[in-house]
Each structure stands twice: as C-alpha cells, then as structure tokens.
C-alpha cells in the first residue's frame, strides 16, 4: 500500500506540473491589447460568469437538457469527493461517520452519473460523432475513480485498486480533455471579461446601455 501511496503522490506531482505547464503555455500566447473604449467592467462580467451566469436558468441549453446537466453536476461532485477521500486516505485520516456516509453517497452517485453519461455518449449517434477516443477514456477513468472511491473507502481490499486507478487518472488528466479542470476557469474568465467589457454582462447591470 505504501508503494501505491507513493505512486499516487508522484502521479499527483506529474498532474500538477503538467497542468501548470499547459496553463503557462496558453498564457504564453499573450494578452490581446484592446484599444476600444470599454462600455462596462470586465471584472464584473467575469464575476457574473462565475456566479449567476452559471445558474441552470441562465442557460437555455441547460434548461432544455436538465437530466444530462444534473448527471454532469453529480458526476463532477462525485469525482471531487473521490479526491477528497483519496487525500484523507493518504493522510491516514477518517471522516466522522455521518460525513463519511454522505461522501460515500456522493462518490457512488458520481460514479453512476459518470457511467450514465458514458453510456449516453456510446448510444447517442450525434454524441458519438462529436467524440474522439479521449472522450471515452477520460469519462471511463473519472467515473471508475468515483465508483472505486466509494468502494475503497470501506477498506484495504478495494483501496489498492482505487489507488491504482487514481494513478492512472492523474497520469492521464493533463493528456486529454480532463485538462478542462484548469482551462474551465480561464475560459469562463475570458468569456465573462469579454461580455463585461462590452456591457452585456451582467445583464441589467449599471453599464447596460
């Protein structure tokens, strides 16, 4: 188990380094110098993009696809919970039983939600058409990780498989689309800043012409 713990830590270090490198590589493209006079505040736009702009009711695409959106949210919550449980396992700490039960439920639900999305990707011809192998690998690794986090939290038997899976997931994360765990934030910031500068975000805000 010790070797696996070390493996997880090394994989984590790789992930952090590689994702940092990717982030810096994107930043190296440089900022666009803007000459037009702003109509609104980019910071306010970015704040809106990360807050009210992420609410389901702020996006028609979400309201029209609520089951998929909900599955996605639960999936992400499950994966993040899995990482929380992994950290506790590495530190040799345990959650109070009520909290542990909640975390297990989240990880289990996240795993199932992830596999439901994978199934949807396999069965829906248009989603299949949108996908490359990375989409399937990323989804499979993340869903399995959440599910194994649930199983691994019960004891050593499944913990070994869970740790191994964690290593695979962490090593793969920067290579494929899981890198969006970093780029989501910069992308959303740029969208919000763009619409904020033009006075479109926040809707109904003081800069709305």
């Amino acid at each position, binding site marked *: 188990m010790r070797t696996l713990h070390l493996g997880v830590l090394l994989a984590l270090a790789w992930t952090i380094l590689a994702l940092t490198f990717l982030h810096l*590589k994107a930043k190296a*493209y440089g900022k*666009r110098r803007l*000459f037009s006079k702003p109509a609104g505040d980019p910071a306010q736009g970015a704040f809106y993009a990360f807050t009210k702009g992420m609410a389901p009711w702020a996006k028609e695409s979400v309201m029209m696809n609520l089951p998929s959106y909900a599955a996605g949210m639960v999936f992400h919550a499950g994966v993040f919970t899995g990482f929380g449980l992994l950290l506790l396992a590495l530190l040799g700490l345990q959650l109070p039983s009520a909290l542990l039960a909640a975390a297990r439920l989240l990880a289990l639900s996240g795993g199932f939600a992830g596999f439901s999305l994978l199934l949807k990707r396999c069965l829906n011809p248009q989603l299949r058409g*949108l996908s490359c192998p990375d989409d399937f690998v990323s989804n499979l690794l993340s869903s399995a990780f959440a599910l194994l986090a649930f199983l691994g939290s019960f004891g050593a038997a499944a913990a070994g498989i869970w740790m191994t899976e964690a290593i695979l997931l962490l090593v793969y994360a920067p290579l494929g*689309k899981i890198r969006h765990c970093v780029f989501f934030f910069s*992308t959303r910031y*740029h*969208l919000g800043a763009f619409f904020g500068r033009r006075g*479109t975000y926040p809707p109904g805000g003081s800069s709305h012409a």
Partner: protein
Amino acid sequence: MPELDELESRLENLTAADFQRGLEVFRSKLKEAEASFLNSCVHCGLCATSCHYYRMDSTLENIPAHKLELIASVFKRNFTTMGRVAPGLVGAKPLDKDMARAWVDSVFGRCSLCGRCSVNCTIGIALPRIFRAARAALGAMGLIPSDLQATVDNALKHGNNMAMTRQDWVETVEWIEEELQMETGDPEARLPLDKQGAKILFTVNPREPKFFPLSLQASAKVFWAAKEDWTMASDPGWDLTNYGIFNCNDEQAGAITQNLVDAMERLGCKTLVIGECGHGYGAARWEGPEWLQKGYPFEVKSILELMDEYVRDGRIKLDPSKNPIPVTLHDPCNLVRHGGICEAQRRVLRKAVTSFTEMTPNREHNFCCGGGGGQLAMARYKGRRIQSGGMKAKQISDSGARIVVAPCHNCIDQLMELNKEYKLNVQIKTVAEMVAEALVSNA
C-alpha cells in the same frame, strides 16, 4: 453554381504553401483567451440546441461543438504535444483539402457568428472568436466565398459596399431632403452634407439610400425634431457597413474603418453616430480600434443611444397613440449580445408605441435572424439561411405582433425574406421609423 465550382476549384488547387500560410494566419489570431477556448471543449453537446442552424436542421454538422472541433482538431495537430504524439487519441487532424472544405462549409456555411452558443456553453467558450480565426485562415488560403469578398472589395474601391457613386449618393440625399421638407412643412429641414464642425457625423447603411430612403428620412426627421447639429459625408466615410468583420481580414477591415476616421477628422465632428446596423455598430464601435491598433480621438454611439437621450432629455416628444399596431423587437446579435446595446431601444419603443411585446427569448439570449455573419452576401448558402431563420420566424409569430422593429438593415433584409417564406404577414421597420411616426409635431 459557378460560385460552387469556383470555390471547389480553388480548394483543389491548394498547395502546401497555401496550407502553411493558412496555419500561420490562424496561429497569429490566437491569444491567451483563444488558446484556453481551444483546450476547453468537453464535447458535452449541450450547445446543440442553442444554435438556430441546429434547431431547424438537427444534424451533427450544425452542432456548435462539432464546428469547433473541426478547428480544434487542426489546432491540436499543429500546436499541441499530444496532437503530435497521439493524434488518434485526442482527435488531432491535419489541415488538408478535406479539412479546408469542411472549415469553409462550417464557418461560412453553418455559422452566422451570432455567439448564442457562447452564452449557452457550459464551459463558456466564445466560439465565434475561434470561427473568426478560421475565416481569417481561409482568407489567407484564398477561400473566402467570392460574393462575400466582392462586398469588401466594393467598400475598398468605392468607399461603400454597394458601389454607389458620389453623385448617386449626393442626389439621393438631396431628394430625401426635399421629401423631409415636404413632410415636416419646414423649408429649413436639412440633410446636411459635409457640414464642417458639426457635432455629429451620421453614417448609414448604403441599403438606405439605395432601397430604403424612408429609413434615412426617418432618422433625419428625428434629428430635425431634436434640433441636432449633424452632418453626413459626401465622400467616403458615410457608409457604416464593414464586411471586413465577416471575411475576417483585419487589414481590409481596418482600411474600411479608416474611411470613418478620416471623415471625422476631415469634418471636425465630435461624435460618430452609427445608424441602425448591427454589424456596422460592432465594426465601428468595438472592432475598428482593434483593427487600427489605436483608440479613436472621438466618441462612437449608436443612433439608438442618441434617440434614447433625446427622449430622456425631452428633446423630442412622442405620442405612442400614433403607433397603435402591436410591435415586437428583434435584437441584432452584433448590437445586443456582442454590442451591449440592450435597453436603449426598448426605452425608446415603449415611449413610441402603444403595444410593445418582447420576443422570447430576447436580449443577449435572442436568436439570430439567420442573416448575420455575412450570410446575406453568400448566395451559395441561401437555403440554409432561410431555413435557419425559421427560429426567428417562430419567435415573431409567437409574439402576436404585426410590426417587427429591427435596428439593423442586414436583419431587415433577412426578415423581409422570412416574412415571405414563412407567411408572417408583418411589417418590418427600424426604431427611427417608429420614432419619426410618433413625433409630436414641432417637438
């Protein structure tokens, strides 16, 4: 058909140097934001229903994420390590003839750059920014649809995109001035040309003098009522359109913008006022300074903002009972979602008409009419343009209004076609036309 063959022939004759040039131009358009966007899509597909093309024709090719992936796959192949090491795994593909053909079909033929997918993307990818980079790359490879490029060439050669001669323009203005004098009963009512030192330089879409003189007359009547100190240019600098925003050639777009800057300097005006035109406002207000790589020494406003100020300051008085027919409002994407002008037109209309109904959805969530992104200038995609406009037609029909107000002449052209195609039986007008109608005489 000749256009189809011509583009296909250009595709077939592409050389390695053409592809290299395309890639170089594509790369030059990418900054930190675009690099983030190209690394972010998770292919969830939820963006599909945000696109008017997809809503009217639910094929894979119309899903915004698919359009993005065509470009992202080339980005991965050429500018990322994983795309070079394991292209099959991450979907990286080379820019070859098939891919160039797919790009043309996608970014010119299936996208009006309306940006509705941006506000609906669960991640927040501003897709039109990437599509613009792809259009620029295709331009460098000689793959701009020729009728779209001809519109740009007209503006570069003649100073306006409809190749009107100076004489035609000036005579039309003089004729409209006579009409305005008759309408107002004021022999002093003017459409001033080249008035040195006027406060405002007003610019119009050449479609107004050419096909919609009443639209220009309405704007002039509003200025007359507000006792505005304004002028138009007789030389280049009177046309607000700039199709450089659609062929995405920044150099050409900048040269067209320069006409406006030169006219402002020549006439010594303080404020450049853009008539009712979505892309014209976006080009002059937002993109122009970026193309020219310098800020303007003057202010740029939409006529919508100006009319809003007139109403607010009591410079014009309106009687809504003069417009009793139910009205709805179309939100041009470049003016509203990408332009930030959301409320001014609403405040004005509420004062100018008796019955105003919003379309659903509206403002930054509006549907494109289908005519944006240069679609009206690309005959080869007319079928798709009319089909994709079905979403707007449904919105209009659902509103129950009998007049659709559209503060954009490109949108008006498209809405007129939709009116016929979908038998909407509505009138289509500009905001200024409604305001001019509601003016209380001698305001």
